[in-house]
């Protein structure tokens, strides 16, 4: 079970690829097969082995604040806005 996951808001992503270069597990790729409404190839999480830990490093470098980060945490410690 993945410890975390990311959601890329495709209305904000400009396909700049910065996030793809910083993911410690190399789980983000550009979807060259699709375009966002603005005509960019969106970044997306590619995590077949459910390796994402929700570390948020991708969100740290994203110039568009397009990436939201989710993490599976014990119910007691669930902080932040439930999705």
């Amino acid at each position, binding site marked *: 079970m993945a410890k975390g996951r990311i959601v890329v808001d495709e209305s904000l992503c*400009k396909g700049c*690829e910065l996030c793809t270069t*910083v993911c410690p597990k190399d789980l983000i790729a550009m979807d060259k097969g699709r375009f966002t409404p603005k005509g960019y190839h969106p970044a997306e999480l590619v995590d077949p082995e459910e390796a994402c830990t929700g570390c948020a490093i991708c*969100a740290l470098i994203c*110039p*568009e604040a397009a990436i939201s980060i989710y993490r599976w945490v014990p*119910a007691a410690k669930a*902080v932040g806005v*439930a999705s």
Partner: protein
Amino acid sequence: MAEEKLVESLIYAKPESLYPVGTHYCPGCTHGVAHRLIAEVIDELGVREETIGVAPVGCAVFAYNYFNMDFAEAAHGRAPAMATGIKRVSPDKIVFTYQGDGDLASIGMAEIIHAAARGENITVIFINNANYGMTGGQMAPTTLPGQKTTSSPLGRDVEMHGFPIRVAELLSQLDGAVYVVRRSLHSVANIRKAKKAIRQAFEVQQQGLGFSMVELLSSCPINWGLPPVEALQWIEDHMLPAYPLGDYKVHPAIAKKPTR
């Protein structure tokens, strides 16, 4: 031990201090990172409703479309003066300017120096991307020797155009400036440090200690003619040597307490 119940929790989303809209900045431009860090700091300090931002002419001229707070758009180079006018009649408000290098170090040099010399209790976020971005990539006071721009097509010739200006070092000489640092946005580690510096600058203002400025080395993929990823590398290879990162003024009154 019983399987502990896990809940999926949203631990990071776009800061409340940014409107949920896209920006006009070029793909991969770290203006966006700077906006995000400022907004995160304002959210964390809980001051969105007491903050007034001032952005002059430049790539960030439409900052008021992105920051979810009271905002003014100043004339080119005059944000420190406009911010002075706002702060002097609203001493209990947080006032920050968000300026580019052409704005701050060229046309607005008198305003920034005198705001610092007066110890104006405002925070200046200074984006140094070594060119005039909005107008299409002309030479700025921070353009590097030899760097080609649309107004130094053969590369900046120091004989003709003079030398780059290191603003953080310059302002640190002024007694009114209490917190003047230079950070960079070209890597995750540096972005983290930049956020700490921005937070420190806002806290300096909250404590009424005087003038604070954070200079941020920032990328300009489109005018540098580089893909976003390589533009960040260009900062490391070319801008860091010319603009060393570090703390150039940290007034002793700024307690060295760790900022979260």
